[in-house]
């Protein structure tokens, strides 16, 4: 039996990351993977880096990390709505300014994907999708047929991604799996203040997927964000569990479940 803890979308939420790592430490896990997007949204981006390194988390690059590493002018989130873009710009400029050159250089060394072999299953880890680092894989916008194609494309039996911020798992007609591990950085637009990571247990070529809620001191995070003059809209999301920005990219079902 092998067990992996996988998370992504940390968005500078070092308090949630620390809480998740403490939870993982109690669960007899063989390895920990982070699927990228270390910065964005939250305060003091440099704080997540030592936490990841000290816990031996194997990390791949997200679009945010790619932008910071290459010194690009934006986060490549691909928003088209002007309001969404102005919030994305605020948080990117803040994160860019406050991430140390050393940490940016480390982001540049991260691979865009990882391919593992676990209990005879081929497991592929990507940030967005196997074909594009910033492609959104939302549950209600991905047909089974398309996911089977992505698994062929990645030559995998199990595909793990993040980037959207909302978790899901689908076992496909072929017996293969796609898991969106969700995000540690902000709650998933369901009115809860907790965040999530995924626990994948492999036994005899059989995979079981469990999503673990992470409760952390979100009031402390909100206070830090206030101290850094980050937008009130972001702080509201941390305090209420409802997304207030970057909603335009949500498909109908995911949008209808939220408040805004």
């Amino acid at each position, binding site marked *: 039996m092998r067990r992996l803890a996988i998370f992504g979308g940390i968005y500078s939420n070092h308090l949630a990351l620390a809480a998740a790592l403490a939870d993982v430490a109690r669960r007899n896990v063989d390895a920990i993977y982070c699927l990228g997007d270390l910065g964005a949204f939250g305060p003091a981006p440099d704080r997540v880096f030592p936490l990841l390194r000290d816990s031996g988390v194997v990390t791949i690059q997200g679009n945010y990390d790619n932008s910071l590493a290459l010194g690009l002018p934006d986060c490549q989130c*691909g928003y088209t709505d002007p309001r969404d873009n102005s919030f994305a710009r605020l948080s990117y400029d803040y994160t860019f300014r406050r991430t140390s050159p050393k940490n940016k250089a480390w982001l540049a060394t991260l691979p865009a994907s990882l391919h593992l072999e676990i209990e005879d299953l081929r497991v592929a880890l990507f940030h967005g999708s196997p074909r594009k680092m910033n492609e959104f894989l939302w549950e209600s916008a991905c*047909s089974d047929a398309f996911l089977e194609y992505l698994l*062929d494309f990645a030559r995998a039996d199990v595909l793990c991604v993040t980037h959207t911020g909302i978790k899901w798992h689908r076992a496909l007609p072929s017996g293969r799996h796609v898991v969106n591990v969700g995000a540690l950085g902000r709650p998933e637009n369901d009115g809860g203040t907790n965040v999530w990571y995924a626990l994948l247990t492999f036994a005899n070529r059989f995979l079981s997927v469990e999503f673990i809620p992470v409760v952390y001191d979100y009031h402390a995070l909100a206070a830090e964000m206030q101290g850094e003059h980050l937008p009130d809209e972001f702080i509201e999301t941390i305090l209420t569990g409802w997304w207030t920005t970057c909603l335009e990219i949500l498909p109908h079902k995911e949008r209808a479940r939220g408040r805004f």
Partner: protein
Amino acid sequence: MNPPRVQLSHLDNLWFQVTGTLCNLACTHCFNGSGPGVRTFDFLSPADVRRELGHAARLGVREIFFTGGEPFLHPALLEMLADSLRVAPVTVLTNATLLPERIAVRLAEIERASSYSLEIRVSLDSPNETANDAIRGAGVFSRVLASIERLCRHGLLPLVTVVRNWPLEDEPEILASFTRLLSDRAGYHRPRLKFLPALPLGRELVRIGALHDEPFVTEEMLGGFDSDLLMCSNSRVVTDRGVWVCPLLVEMPDARLGSHLADAAPSYALRHRACYTCYEFGVFCSNVSPAIEGATPPAAPGEP
């Protein structure tokens, strides 16, 4: 000079031109010349749609779009939407003038019965009734708002799309007007609004009096360009007269690729001015992420 060829890299978007070019409106900017009594293309049958859905599923289709003409002129549209939602998420592009209570109720039921999203894309042109109806026809504005109200009341959040026909500096004001309008007149308090570029095609080309002076796409232009942004690399259109390479080229005989998806040609040479429009404006009808600069290109596709 040979026009550059673009391969279908993957069928992300399958379009059904379900009512051909038949529409109950004759908007002044229609890109494919649809209107009342226009039968350049005719209706698809539910059997046509089911056959192509089967093939598209084998190709790994991601998303399905219904367009026309006006899709709700088809008496079997709801059946075809439900069939499609068993395969993939669905978007229907409508003028929302033919959505009485009974249809709104059924749409909401069909949406709830699927694990995939059903997007109802409603076209408007202006937050001002007179300006809107000058483009779309008398009385359209109030009928559309009544339809949006019905959809919202049944739990659907239509995507209101507007072709940009104002200077950029007016955008915040226009956005605020639309938001107010949808809230006040349709009870839509968290409107999903999408502004689209005006495409110099079809009647719009005539309307703006444009000269045919856009350049053609060349091999050089495609160098370093992410061709995933071109519809021909990720989309196909099924009509009653065969499969076309993209929704913008259905008037062009050479853009017909075959009679069915199963026998459609896998690539297309970009020999039309409309190809330049697509190159310049990008995929206006679906949400494709822009390319990642400097990111490692993905591994070559595996064999299915």
